[in-house]
């Protein structure tokens, strides 16, 4: 079985059945990641190019390792030193990579919809590794995998997502994915950082952080970019931490075995205090491990060899 589309552009485009299938496949892949012999040949002879228009450590390295663990040729294009800096369009860059025999392009871009534009214009597969404020489907998949590992299911889970929802592609993909899987998403953000109409995606908006977190199975923090304060979205990091940050006081209402999650990188002491980040309930590093497994699953399901 393969995915129904040649690309993975967002969780909006795939159903619960495919999400379940990806997560099941990732479970198998995780055995490889955590073994001492991290090498299979599912992608032998395939080439994987990551094209990152934004900075990234974990997503880029995670994809690269995922490809290499499965025997693919993996190349990173550093946009700053590429033809993009000479004004080449995204479509032209994509076609150039394709002409070199690339089977799949992993793209991160600051413009929402850029992966869709690329996918429409090349025959190679495209995975969205985060586009603007739109979606970050592999992050949401690894988050869901992490929740499922602990709770066995996503159905009926209460997941609080706290912070800068407006700019967050992680939040959008999680809201869409978790809702499709039967979880309930509860949101809290500074009102300046709550996007219009988000409740129509099935999430609930709460008036205080404590209300949003109450009785939750998962509390997910989001990175807030510190420069947002210059755009009048919040006054200071101090005030942000006090009213919108996740700290030991306001998570008291969560379930006893609740998980603390964060897509990283974290601003310690702003959106999440260190006591939370380093607590036993924190699964931030587990998320990273699962990220490799989820990306292996996707690469395999999109361009893996039929026989091995």
């Amino acid at each position, binding site marked *: 079985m393969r995915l129904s589309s040649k690309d993975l552009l967002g969780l*909006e485009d795939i159903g619960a059945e495919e999400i379940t299938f990806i997560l099941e496949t990732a479970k198998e892949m995780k055995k490889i990641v955590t073994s001492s012999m991290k090498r299979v040949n599912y992608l032998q002879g395939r080439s994987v190019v990551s094209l990152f228009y934004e900075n990234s450590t974990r997503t880029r390295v995670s994809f690269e390792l995922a490809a290499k663990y499965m025997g693919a040729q993996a190349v990173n294009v550093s946009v700053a030193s590429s033809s993009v800096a000479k004004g080449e*369009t*995204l*479509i032209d860059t994509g076609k150039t990579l394709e002409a070199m025999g690339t089977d799949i392009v992993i793209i991160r*871009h600051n*413009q*929402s*919809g*850029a992966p*869709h*534009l690329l996918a429409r214009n090349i025959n190679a597969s495209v995975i969205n590794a985060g*586009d*603007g*404020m*739109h*979606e970050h489907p592999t992050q949401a998949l690894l988050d869901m995998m992490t929740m499922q590992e602990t709770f066995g299911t996503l159905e009926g889970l209460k997941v609080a997502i706290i912070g800068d929802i407006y700019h967050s*592609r992680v939040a*959008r993909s999680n809201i869409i994915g978790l809702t499709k899987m039967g979880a309930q998403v509860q949101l809290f953000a500074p009102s300046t950082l709550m*996007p*219009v*109409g*988000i409740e*129509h*995606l099935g999430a609930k908006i709460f008036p205080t952080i404590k209300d949003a977190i109450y009785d939750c199975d998962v509390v997910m923090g989001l990175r807030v970019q510190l420069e947002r304060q210059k*755009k009048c979205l919040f006054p200071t990091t101090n005030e942000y931490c006090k009213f919108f940050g996740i700290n030991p006081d306001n998570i008291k209402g969560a379930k006893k075995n609740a998980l603390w999650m964060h897509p990283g990188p974290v601003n310690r002491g702003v959106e999440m205090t260190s006591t939370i980040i380093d607590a036993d309930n924190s699964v931030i590093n587990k998320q990273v491990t699962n990220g490799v497994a989820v990306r292996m699953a996707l690469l395999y399901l999109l361009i893996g060899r039929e026989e091995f």
Partner: protein
Amino acid sequence: MRMLIINGTVIQWDKIEKANVLIEEGTIVSTKAAPDTDADKIIDADGLYVLPGLIDAHCHLRDPGFEYKEDMVSGTKSAARGGFTSIACMPNTNPVVDNAAVVRYIIEKSKKEGYVNVFPIGAISKGLDGIELAEMGIMKEAGIVAVSDDGKPVMNSDVMKKALIYAAQFDLPVISHCEDLNLTDGGSMNEGLTSTVLGLRGIPASSEDVMVAREILLSEYTKIPVHIAHVSTKASVELIRQAKKRGIKVTAETCPHYFTLTEEACKNYNTNAKMNPPLRSREDLEAVIEGLKDDTIDMIATDHAPHHFDEKNVEFEKAANGIVGFETALALGYTKLVEPGHLSLPKLIEKMTVSPAKMLRIDKGTLERGKAADITIVDFDSEYTVDVSKFASKSKNSPFDGFKVKGKVMTTIVGGKIVYEKHEFFG
């Protein structure tokens, strides 16, 4: 040269009747001519409608400076194919129309190469920068009919107030592109559920509304008329409605896309649905139609804004704003407003002829005896499919490709001369 148009249904803004139109030396001589009147050329308009040539108060011809998008020839052909005989073009060319030389260039080129009457609109401010006034008086002498910084708002309220006062002295209408750039804040589509789902920065309706309110208040204070370009929101319609009730001399236009499409057309990052102001919500669309019905919105303009394929085949936020407008405007007006019963056919024609002529203060828009014979002959009965590849415009950026509509322009006559007939142009 005598031309006779027989058997047609003649629509004037106030009436609709079977009549024969006689033209002599480019001038309308009679709308009650006998069908057997002697003529050099007879057009049989049986089953067709004969209208005053359409007038567009708002278009972008891209000449000079952006001829790869459109030029005088292709732009006026596109207008003729859409049934427009007079068009007023916005000054955001390169160089900007903020001096008499560019005005003269446009007028001379349109006379030499154009297929329809072209009326340039001059800039309000030098370079469209919104800081210092452009030479409105000298440009008026050279032939501009109005001033506008369209594409950009005049952000400084004091500059706008002075522009109104100064333009009035030269009898120039002021057309305002209402947008508060601070509220727009880098947005690329309407702020709402669709922008949230697509992860695109939203432009709130209030970005338009606060500037419409400002223009109304400045007009009230200075007692000088102001014309609001491309109205797209419910609150703007309501502000204009109340202003008119209070006797403030405000006029307004909307464009076919604002009564035809909503923000949902942007789904899948469809850059052909990207324009400024952006496509709004269903509620806004309905309010625009209500505004057209009760004459809060006086006229329909095209905001014809051609762009090259490469400028649209990019990331949504990078894509250029605007769509090709001439060649679908009348058909959308008929299909979306007249057929569902929102407007009578004469009312639609009034909003595309008499109303823009009155605002621009040009002697056009009727088929009265003695007027220049600018006439459009239309088939409103047969349905057809919009095909952008057939556009006369150099650009094909339209969200209406494949739309089924009624209202096909058969013949366009400018000053008694046929410029477009049966898919052919006559220069």
